Structure formats: C-alpha cells, structure tokens
C-alpha cells in the first residue's frame, strides 16, 4: 500500500498549552486510520494542521513521500485532501449543488450548475448517498447534511479524507450505513482518517488506531489487536471500568409521572405527542433516541421551562404541570440540563455562587434577602470536596472549569437538595472518560439510595445500556417502545431510534 501521508514530530503550541507534542502520524491508501482521544487531546489540532488551518511550530509533513507545506485549505484541496468537519461547513441558504460547486475552480462567470448536479446524482447513486441536489441545506436533516459533506469530498475526488466525529449526530442504523460507505471508499483506494471517542465504533471501522493524550501519541495499535478497555485506559492513562457495577435494587412508588404530554417546539410544530412515562424510586429510566427527537423539549417541559399544550406532569403527588421552574424544584425535582454552559451554570459567577444558585433564596444561604457568605463558602467547600470538583478555588469563575468538572459541580448542587426526582439530560456529553465514569457512579449511587427516581436522557446508547433499568426510545416526540435493560439489544433499540416500532422490529 502507498504511503499517502506522513506527519513527523508535529509540535503546535498555543499560549499556555502544548496542543501537539512531537506527534507522528501516517496514513496509507486503502485504510481507515483512527485518531482516538479525549476532548482536548489534540486530535482536531493535528487535523487542522493537515488541512492548512493552522501552521505547525515544528515537524514535517509528507504527502506521498514529498515534503509539503500546506498553508491554506486551498493548498490542502489541491493535494487531494478533504475534510468533513464536526460542525458542517455548509451554507444553509445555498442549495446542495451550490454548496458542492462552491470553491471548485473553473472558468469565471456564470456557473454551469447543471453539470454539477448531474455529477452529484451519479455520485449519490454509486455510493448510496441519497440526497436531492436541488434542495437547500436548511431543508435537510443532519444525516443528509453529512452526506452532502461526503459528496463534496467525492466530487473533488479526494485521495485522503478526514472525518471529525462524524457519528455524533447519527442513529446506530445511519452509523452502520455510513461505515459501509466509508469502507467502500477505503477499498477504492482512498485513505481515511477517522476521529472519534466512541470505542465500539472505532473498533468496528478502523484498520489502525492511534491514541492521543495531552497532545502526545500514547500508542498505535492494529484494530484487530485492540479491546475497548485497553483503548480507554490508553486515553485516560489509568485502568478504566467502562460499565458501572449496577447492583439490583428495589423499586418503590412512582415519583415522576408524565401523562399524555403534548408540547410545541420552537418552530411551532409538535415536539412531543401524547407522551407518557413513569419513573419509580430506585430506578433509572433511560430515554434513548437520536438528537432532535424531542429530548430537549421533554426535559424543559418537566423542568417547567416550557409550557405544555396538554397533558399532566406530577412529581410525587404534586401536579406541577405548567408550573414555574422554582415550583417544580420545590416539589422535589433536580435538573441537570443538556446545555450546561448555558442553562446549568453562570460562567461569570464563582464556583461557590454557582453552588447555591438554586438555594440562594432560602435559609441558611440567605437571610432577609442578604446572602450569607460564611454559610455559602462552607457549604460549597463541602460539596466541592464531596464531588471531587477539580477547581483552583471557590472564587474562580465557573467558566474556567473543564466540562467534566462543571458537570460535577452542577450534579453536586442538584443532589444537595435531597431531590425525589433527578432529571439528567446528556450528563456526560463532551465530558472526559474519567469524569463520565465518576458521574455514572454517582447516578448509580443515587439509584441505590432507593429514594430517588432518575430520568436519564442521553443520545449515547452505551450510556443508556450501561445505566438504565428500563429503556424508552423516543422518536419524533413519541415513545416508540420501551424495554427492560436485561432484554435490550443494541440493534433492536437502534431500529426503534430510526422510527421502526417494536412490533415491526
């Protein structure tokens, strides 16, 4: 196999950070080589260097054996390099054809878009990438948008394609389909760089795996020799338990009941349709589903942030339907929101201020409207220790904390009120493996306390499978099926996530 790419001793510094520390990486024609690592491990930086968005401080880059300098995306494109970014590089107000044609160098003046759209049709047929060339990007689903990105690369006939976390937005079925296409592209002789942190996907797709941690290469392994535990340990730097131990518990009475909930989304279309569910104390109900199927609206409606059109929500025996967030909290709900930066914490506030955000109106945190700093600091110190939030101090702004530590802070705050219901929405998204492991343990611990009902909304199917006692699948605002954890299988749930109801599957 020909050596498409060699990156030798790449060093990239940012103020205060060594993003890439003497990284070696290579790619051969016909293979899928995965870059694996936690957020901030340096994967994206390395690939941005490859694509000409950054210049390396040290090191050498060889394309097909030739030392090359890539100073802009235009350079990268001219060397046959393509990239599917995690945030799609598409212009929503243009059509698929226009997006594909954009930047392709040819004669000036009027565009011959007809030729471009014909070529798109050919490519989508030969690669199984169904997409309408005349559709506007804003009309397309995320899956379709990703296909447009791949078509863009194929249209330019790239030799080397980088895919940055391409599966984050896809259903398991779509992932399988994508992998099939990617394997096909590799077999046709292209080289693929796959960036991911989902271990089972990495193992399923890759030929080789390079693991990065703190900007350094921790090792390179052949996929057939690797296991999930081994990769996870390389990523984190210590042995990791991937599946938390989940001791059996007694489930008690229903603490959260949702009946026939109908909710409108932001665009005035129904987001939840006749949705009902019950969570009992001592159990975790997992809501599985692909992003954008009503999860956000469900969480917001329960938390009192969104008014339902009809239906009822009860925490314990309190009817909290349509009540203010403070009233829902008073009834016993704790809420770990999906957008932790936006909804879960105030970045400019200190760690201790964030710790008491929801309790600040009550003694002992305040008296007669005045905050009591001594009490607040004592309480914060206690929670920071208890939940091992790594912070330089109680007075640093919360925005300085890493995603995982911020999430621990929020969890500590939410659990400190002894809730009867814990609603956790995407609790480990974007969180490093170590913190995720910790958060999982705390959720299991709460479950074991026997007095809390936990509703876990997650798009990470592994997380759901690992934690939940029961799994409900949400699709287009409806619960399309519910299974007990012991009966659950990845494929069946994947089908339901794609809208195939249980009976059909």
């Amino acid at each position, binding site marked *: 196999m020909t050596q498409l790419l060699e990156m030798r001793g790449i060093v990239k510094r940012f103020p205060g950070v060594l993003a890439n520390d003497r990284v070696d990486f290579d790619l051969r024609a016909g293979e899928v080589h995965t870059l694996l690592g936690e957020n901030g491990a340096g994967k994206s930086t390395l690939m941005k260097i490859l*694509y000409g*968005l950054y210049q390396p401080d040290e090191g050498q880059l060889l394309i097909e054996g030739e030392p090359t300098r890539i100073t802009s995306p235009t350079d990268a494109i*001219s060397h046959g390099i393509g*990239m599917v970014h995690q945030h799609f*590089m598409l*212009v929503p107000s*243009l059509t698929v054809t226009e997006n594909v044609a*954009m930047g392709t160098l040819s004669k000036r003046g009027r565009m011959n878009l007809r030729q471009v759209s014909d070529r798109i049709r050919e490519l989508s047929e030969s690669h199984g990438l169904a997409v309408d060339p005349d559709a506007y990007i804003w009309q397309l689903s995320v899956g379709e948008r990703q296909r447009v990105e791949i078509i863009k690369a194929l249209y330019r006939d790239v030799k080397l394609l980088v895919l940055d976390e391409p599966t984050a937005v896809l259903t398991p079925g779509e992932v399988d389909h994508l992998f099939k296409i990617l394997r096909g592209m590799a077999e046709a002789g292209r080289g693929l760089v796959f960036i991911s942190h989902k271990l089972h996907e990495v193992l399923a797709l890759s030929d080789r795996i390079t693991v990065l941690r703190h900007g350094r290469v921790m090792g390179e392994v052949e996929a057939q020799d690797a296991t999930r535990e081994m990769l996870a340990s390389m990523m984190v730097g210590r042995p990791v338990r991937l599946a938390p131990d989940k001791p059996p518990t007694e489930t008690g009475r229903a603490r959260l009941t949702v009946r026939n909930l109908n909710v409108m989304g932001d665009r005035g279309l129904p987001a939840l349709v006749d949705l009902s569910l019950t969570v009992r104390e001592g159990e975790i109900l997992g809501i599985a589903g692909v992003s954008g199927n009503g999860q956000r609206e469900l969480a917001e409606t329960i938390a009192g942030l969104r008014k339902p059109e009809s239906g009822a929500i009860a925490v314990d025996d309190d009817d909290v339907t349509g009540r203010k967030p403070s009233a829902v909290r008073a009834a016993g709900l704790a809420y770990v929101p999906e957008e932790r930066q936006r909804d879960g914490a105030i970045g400019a506030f200190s760690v201790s201020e964030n710790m008491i955000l929801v309790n600040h109106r009550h003694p002992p945190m305040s008296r007669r409207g005045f905050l009591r700093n001594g009490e607040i600091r004592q309480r914060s110190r206690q929670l920071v220790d208890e939940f091992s939030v790594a912070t330089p101090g109680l007075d640093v702004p919360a925005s300085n904390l890493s995603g995982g530590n911020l999430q621990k802070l929020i969890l500590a705050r939410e659990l400190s009120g002894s809730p009867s219901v814990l609603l956790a929405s995407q609790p480990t998204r974007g969180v490093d493996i170590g913190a995720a492991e910790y958060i999982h343990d705390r959720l299991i611990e709460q479950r074991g306390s026997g007095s809390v009902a936990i509703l876990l909304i997650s798009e990470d199917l592994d997380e759901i499978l690992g934690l939940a006692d029961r799994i409900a699948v949400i699709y287009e605002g409806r619960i399309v099926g519910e299974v007990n954890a012991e009966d659950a299988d990845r494929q069946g749930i994947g089908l339901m996530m794609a809208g195939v109801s249980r009976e059909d599957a």
Partner: protein
Amino acid sequence: MADIFSATVIVATLSSGIRLAVPLLLASLGEAFGQRSGVLNLGVDGIMLLGAFGGYFTTLKTQSPWLGLAVGLGIGLVLGLLSSVISVSLLAEQGISGIGVYLFGLGMSDLLFQKLVGTPLPAASFQKAPIPLLSEIPVVGDLFFNHSIPIYLAFLAIPVSTVIINRTRFGMNIRAVGENPEAADSQGISVTRVRYAAVTIGGVLAGAAGAVLAIGLGIFQQNLTNAQGFIAIALVYFGAWRPLGVMAGSLVYGMVSAVVLLLKTRGIIPLGASDLAAMIPAVITVLALVVAARRFRAPTALTKPFIRGG
C-alpha cells in the same frame, strides 16, 4: 386641487421621485454587495461626499459630466479599497471604522471644496436622453424614458446585480462568505478576496451615487449628501439585502418625498405642519419595508471579521 391629478403634475412629481431615488438606489445597492459578503460599511456617506465633490469639481473644470462621473467612480474605488483594508484585513470593528471613513469623507470633501472651488459655481449637468420611440408614449414615455443616461444605468444596475448575486460563481461566493465564512474558507474560497471585491463594488457604487447627485444638481456644497448614505444603509436592511428590495425602498423614499413636496407646494399640507411632514418619507419607507422584509434575515456573518481557525 383637482389639477394635482393632471398628467403634467403627476409626471413632474414622479420624475422628481425618480431623481431623488437614484443616489439612494446606487448607494444602497453597493452597500448590499458588501453586506451580503458579511461586511457592514457605515462609511457610505463619506464615500458619497468625496465622489460628489470629485464629480462636481471635474465637471466644473472640464465641462464634461461624464469625466466627472468617471472621477466619482474612481474615488469610490479607492475609498472602497481603503474600507476593505480597514474592515477585512485589519479586522476593525465595523460599527466604528465606517464612521471614521464617513468623517474623513465629510471633512475632506469640505476642505477640498473650500480650497479648490470656494464659492459654489454651477457646473454642467447630464443632458436628458429621451429614448427614441419609447419616450413618445404619452405620460409613460415622459415618466420612464425621458431621463439622463446615468439614471437609466442606475436602474439597469438592479437586474444586473440580481443576476450577479444569484447566478454567478462570484455572487455565490459573496453569499457564502456572508453566511458561513468557515465553510467558504474550507472549500478554498478566499474570504478576504471575496470581501475585498464586494466592499470595493460598494465603494464604486457609493462614489457613483455621490457623483450622480452632485452632477445632477450641478452644484456642490458642504455635506451635500445630507446623510443620504445612512438612509441607504437603512434601505439595505429594509430591502432585505436584495437588489430589487433596495430599489423598491429607494423608490418609495424618493416618491414619498416628491409627493410630500407636491402637497406642501400646493398648500395641502399646511405650513404649520411642514416641518413635521419632512419625516413622512422616512416613516412610510420604514413601515412599507418592515412589513415587506419581515420574512428575511441578515447574512449570518454580517459585521463579523473572519479569522481562520479562530
């Protein structure tokens, strides 16, 4: 008052509206190019003023309005490039840097006027160029086909711009860098080059707007544009960043101004209300275009300097 509906009066009033609209139309069309590419240029009025002075001065000295117009375009080109350097290359805050260009144009045009001309003297103007046959049509002919050539050209610029923006690769690049410069950059489009081009087109059209204004009037005076450049910027918003929209806005503004003048002249708007009535064109334009433009939104990257990988 029935005679205000006579053909002569209607033609005179609407022609007046067209003349008032043309500088606005050119300036806002140019601004639309820049804004579609993501660059807000608040310096339009300054460019117009210098274009106006350059056009007037050249015409005064050479007796050739066409040479004057060419100088106005040239001044617009230079200032458009200058604006691009400031907002695209130097990544300046666009809300502030444009004001700098405006103040420069305001001060410099006045200084040059005082030094080079002194007392305002009348200069030659464009001749009317009735279009054969078409201008013979009663009423309509006089209204649409009996103007000077720059006025025809200004209106011709509208469909031409529509085609450029919607139907050419260059136009698509402008829209792409205005909506998602990262995407454009990752496709190998030079965001810098496209924005330079778009802002410079805006400068040329602003210079033309000023020159057409001054040469059309045959006179220059300090602050001749009277903030028309800022009205033009407003018309871009309300014209929803589309050539046809800004044309409609300019025409509404010009026509309403002309009708208000007519009503004042005939005493239908009483003297006591005449100062208040001066606001009517602005109010009606805002209302008309707000209603029409509600469905549209600004280019996503408007006012955002582009920094690669940032």
